[in-house]
């Protein structure tokens, strides 16, 4: 039965890899909506200086007189603040746009480096095996047995605040997840006959790992990558909220939430709530995209 349907599918999709990818992906309308939302967020983050109504960090445009205006208010110059302003009189909407840029940037950059580091360690561990593999995987086990927030707090406490330091902390917290995923799929791939064929053709270890095994392990790594990036963003937000992550000069969403926190009891909810909602939407949309990718690449759920 599976044979027949698989046969039909392979015939239907033989035209283009991307078309097949999209056909599978678009089976869940929720995932498509999530992808659209995530795409818009990404667009806003990349082009924040152009899409924001004002530049919240340009001191010449910020007026302390406009501080803590509720959403929808208008100032004396006739500017409308859709989401209100914060304690320093900055437009919340613009702050959120710029905050997204920082949050996504830090999350993606740390995720990417962690992916590279983790993949190299995981793939080489699987390929060479033996003591090297045991050594790498025991470190991974130890690493994964600590709560990531605790790890990050300790690292930042040692190194101090700063963008690079936060990124380093996030990499150190995350690489083990990638290493574990990379090793698991490389163990499957390395026993496949095409790898034996490559050995038989004397292509050399480096070429076999990079050109043959790695491309075939990318699918699960991309899934882990999306989900981990969401995790990194929320972790960074937590750290910044606690005042340990990014410096005030690079305000991320977490820092915005933290800034607004002191005004919560005075009823100025918007300063904290709106960055919070932005963070929530970002993380949920990334997770939904990641879930769908995971389902697509899971052979057990293959239809």
């Amino acid at each position: 039965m599976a044979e027949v349907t698989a046969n039909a599918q392979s015939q239907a999709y033989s035209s283009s890899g991307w078309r097949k990818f999209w056909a599978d992906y678009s089976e869940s309308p929720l995932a498509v909506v999530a992808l659209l939302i995530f795409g818009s967020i990404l667009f806003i983050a990349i082009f924040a200086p152009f899409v924001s109504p004002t530049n919240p960090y340009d001191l010449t445009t910020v007026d302390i007189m406009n501080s803590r205006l509720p959403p929808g208010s208008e100032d004396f110059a006739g500017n409308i603040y859709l989401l209100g302003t914060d304690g320093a009189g900055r437009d919340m909407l613009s702050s959120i746009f710029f905050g997204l840029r920082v949050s996504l940037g830090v999350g993606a950059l740390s995720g990417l480096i962690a992916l590279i580091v983790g993949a190299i360690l995981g793939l080489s561990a699987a390929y060479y095996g033996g003591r090297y593999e045991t050594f790498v995987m025991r470190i991974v086990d130890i690493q994964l047995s600590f709560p990531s927030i605790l790890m990050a707090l300790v690292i930042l406490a040692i190194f101090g605040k700063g963008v690079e330091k936060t990124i380093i902390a996030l990499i150190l917290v995350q690489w083990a997840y990638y290493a574990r995923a990379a090793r698991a799929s490389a163990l499957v791939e390395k026993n496949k006959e095409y790898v034996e064929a490559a050995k038989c053709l004397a292509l050399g270890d480096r070429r076999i790992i990079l050109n043959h095994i790695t491309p075939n392990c990318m699918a699960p790594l991309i899934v882990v990558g999306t989900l981990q990036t969401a995790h990194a963003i929320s972790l960074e937000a937590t750290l910044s909220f606690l005042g340990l992550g990014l410096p005030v000069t690079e305000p991320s969403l977490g820092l915005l939430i933290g800034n607004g926190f002191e005004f919560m009891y005075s009823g100025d909810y918007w300063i904290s709530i709106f960055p919070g909602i932005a963070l929530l939407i970002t993380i949920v949309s990334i997770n939904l995209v990641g879930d769908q990718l995971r389902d697509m690449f899971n052979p057990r759920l293959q239809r």
Partner: protein
Amino acid sequence: MAPILDVRNLQTHFFTKSGVLKAVDGVSFQIGAGEIVGLVGESGSGKSITGFSILGLVDAPGRIVGGEILFKGNDLTKLPATDIQKMRGSRIAMIFQDPMMTLNPVLRIETQMTEAIQTHDSSVSKDEARRRSRDALGMVGISSPDERMRAYPHQFSGGMRQRVSIAIAMLNRPDLIIADEPTTALDVTIQGQVIHEMQQLCRKTKTALLWITHDLAVVAGISSRICVMYAGRIVEQGPNDVLIGSPMHPYTNGLLRSVPSQNLRGQPLQQIEGIVPSLLNLPPGCAFENRCGRALAQCKQSAPEETVMDDQRILRCFNKVEQS
């Protein structure tokens, strides 16, 4: 005598995103009590789907869209799903290529066997069920069945697992067993053993057996009738010696001629050119036409109907092979 199973013009289609896939398209055959019928075909010929259809195991997007499956006179296609389920495992049993499809890995063989008996007949006592299970294991050639019953499936070798699944299939004395590639995964000497047990069982218990396989040589050894399937249809069926001795359909003929042991050593094998067509876009004519050396103009336009020949053979071909 009325046949145990009488399949008439069975059609099972799959409604996929890319179109209607006619996996089984007009299949008819009969099996009498104690008879072994071989259903032979290549991958994608629809032979397994025929088996699944009889068992009522066709899943969406597949559906039986036409024809009748008469089992002891009752049309299975008209019965509600619950009745078929009751029949499955008691009156009709199945054996698959991978025995782990029927065996539960976390239960002892004993538990699985006694449960199989008691679900279908709750009046049987635990001891009686156990005794019958032990006898069934003994019948399929498992030594010290008492001890083996306490084991889990993973403690058996592949051949032993297949014997256990045969024993489970035989437990409720079914009238019909459908075996889908039961020996394909086994080694030669073990395959011989399993075929031997099945042969003996069918003879003793008068169970009808449908043996689905890609291996002509296996069915040539055990079955009384052979059906050859190609692209969803039985292109030729007939008594064993008639079909193997003088195949009339060019496909059957080609298959037989391409088996290595039939040919002289060192000579090239006679081969069927081309590949099995996609079931999605079958031509209006005979599906074998593009690979057939004997194709006529009319083969392209219309599909040949089943014709009954003098020697009890049923053939779908406009230009049959004449054996010299």
